[in-house]
């Protein structure tokens, strides 16, 4: 093969490559004049031509790439390749339909006076990138939505868990308290009968002995004290039996206000005159519960006696009767009545507060209290389906406050 034949063969190959290449190849001069243009670029660029010719690339692309002239001018003096993206409407499909195309426009410097513009159709690639970006944004939105939903679900679950734990703790406290009462009640019921018999025997024997002793003798005085002590012991046994007593077999309709007033009447006789009892009722006089009438009296008397003791037998004990619905922070399941007993005594310390309903727990001096009063109240209220709330502010000087609120379900008129 001669050199001339080789060159001719290679030229033919390059020419075939030029016209078959699926990219646009346009050879231009620095002023934009088109020297050579292949089929692909001719089909892309002709729709942009205003005069139906493709003589100058700057003219053809003056709308699609207004800065092309400057780009070529700045590039003509240097070697290498520069890329520029163009968006243009071209007639490139077989049906001749106008479609938006994204072209990648590259410039390759051939020599000082000739440049080759390379046009690639990157519409599909750009669309895929846009689609990918849309998917990414959509995914981010989904992730954000899901994250918010999960955070809300977590917060709700945490709140539900906290509420559940609090409820379980409250139920556990109630069970513990009930177990204590039940244990003591069983014990009291078991021994009280025998203990009463023993006391009756002692009293009977002591009274017989008392009849035979001379008036004013030391022995008679001593026997009198024995008898007195036995009666106190019998009262204590009676209170233990009260505590151990379960819900009455035949509860009746009890007018709450009447029983509260009766309890206050009894209290008035037993409390010192320096204690005032102030009663107010926000309920109708017909408000009633299903209970043993003495249970209401026991509740009011025990709470008021404790209040009087806390106030060192001076001050005012306020007793109120209200609809439970009118009480702020009333237990949610209580919509009956509320008996409030409030004092201005020394208050209850947190340590004592934890044990005030424990049977036989007392802060009174030995011999002054049995420690059963609040246990009895607790047992009665719980047996009636009610609840008790206690609020207290400690002030040893006597300026504190303690407020018991007893909630009990009412019955229809």
């Amino acid at each position: 093969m001669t050199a001339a034949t080789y060159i001719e063969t290679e030229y033919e190959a390059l020419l075939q490559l030029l016209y078959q290449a699926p990219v646009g190849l346009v050879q231009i001069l620095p002023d934009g004049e088109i020297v050579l243009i292949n089929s692909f670029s001719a089909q892309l660029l002709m729709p942009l031509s205003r005069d139906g010719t493709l003589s100058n690339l700057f003219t053809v692309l003056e709308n699609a790439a207004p800065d092309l002239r400057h780009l070529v001018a700045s590039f003509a003096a240097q070697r290498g390749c520069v890329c520029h993206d163009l968006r243009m409407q071209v007639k490139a499909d077989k049906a001749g339909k106008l479609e938006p195309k994204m072209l990648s426009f590259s410039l390759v410097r051939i020599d000082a006076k000739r440049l080759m513009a390379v046009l690639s159709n990157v519409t599909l690639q750009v669309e895929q990138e846009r689609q990918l970006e849309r998917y990414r944004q959509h995914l981010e939105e989904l992730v954000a939505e899901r994250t918010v939903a999960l955070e809300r679900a977590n917060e709700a679950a945490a709140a539900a868990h906290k509420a559940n734990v609090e409820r379980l703790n409250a139920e556990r406290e109630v069970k513990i308290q009930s177990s204590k009462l039940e244990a003591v009640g069983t014990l009291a019921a078991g021994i009280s009968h025998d203990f009463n018999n023993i006391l009756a025997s002692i009293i009977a024997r002591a009274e017989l002995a008392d009849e035979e002793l001379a008036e004013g003798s030391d022995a008679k005085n001593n026997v009198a004290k024995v008898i007195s002590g036995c009666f106190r012991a019998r009262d204590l046994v009676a209170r233990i039996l009260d505590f151990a007593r379960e819900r009455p077999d035949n509860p009746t309709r009890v007018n709450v206000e009447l029983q509260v007033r009766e309890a206050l009447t009894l209290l008035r006789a037993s409390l010192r005159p320096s204690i005032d009892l102030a009663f107010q009722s926000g309920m109708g006089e017909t408000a009633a519960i299903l209970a043993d009438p003495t249970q209401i009296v026991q509740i009011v008397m025990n709470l008021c006696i404790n209040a009087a003791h806390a106030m060192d037998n001076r001050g005012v004990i306020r007793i109120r009767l209200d609809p439970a619905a009118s009480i702020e922070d009333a237990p949610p399941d209580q919509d009956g009545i509320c008996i409030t007993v409030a004092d201005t005594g020394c208050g209850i310390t947190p340590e004592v507060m934890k044990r005030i309903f424990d049977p036989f727990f007392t802060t009174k001096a030995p011999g002054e209290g049995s420690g059963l009063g609040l246990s009895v109240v607790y047992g009665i209220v719980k047996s009636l389906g009610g609840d008790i709330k206690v609020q207290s502010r400690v002030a040893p000087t006597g300026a504190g406050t303690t407020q018991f609120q007893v909630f009990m379900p009412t019955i229809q008129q």
Partner: protein
Amino acid sequence: MVDFNEAGIATQLAAFGAGDMDELGFGAIGFDADTVVQVYNSWESRMTGLTAASVLGQPLFTVVALCMNNFMVAQRFEDAARDGTRLDEAIDYVLTLRVRPVKVKLRLLSLPESALRYVLILRPP
């Protein structure tokens, strides 16, 4: 005078005798199954400056009209031949080889029963 857009033009061309092609008012190139040019009418010769003698017997797509050697023109003929189907499509096109880029309308014709296929070229007035 046969019109460029006439519906049955492929059948008419197959029946043309010698010299009929030169009567057409648009360019016409006829080529065989091997893409060798067999017809090059005088209208096309005037437009391109190529004599019929220099073109006849030459491969159309690889020598005479490289600018048609692509998926838009040559590929359509190959597809029709392979599938044995009729080809009659008119497309907007830009010719580039040996001429200034010029916007034309091409009509691509191929009948399975005909020995020759035709590219008709309608240039703007």
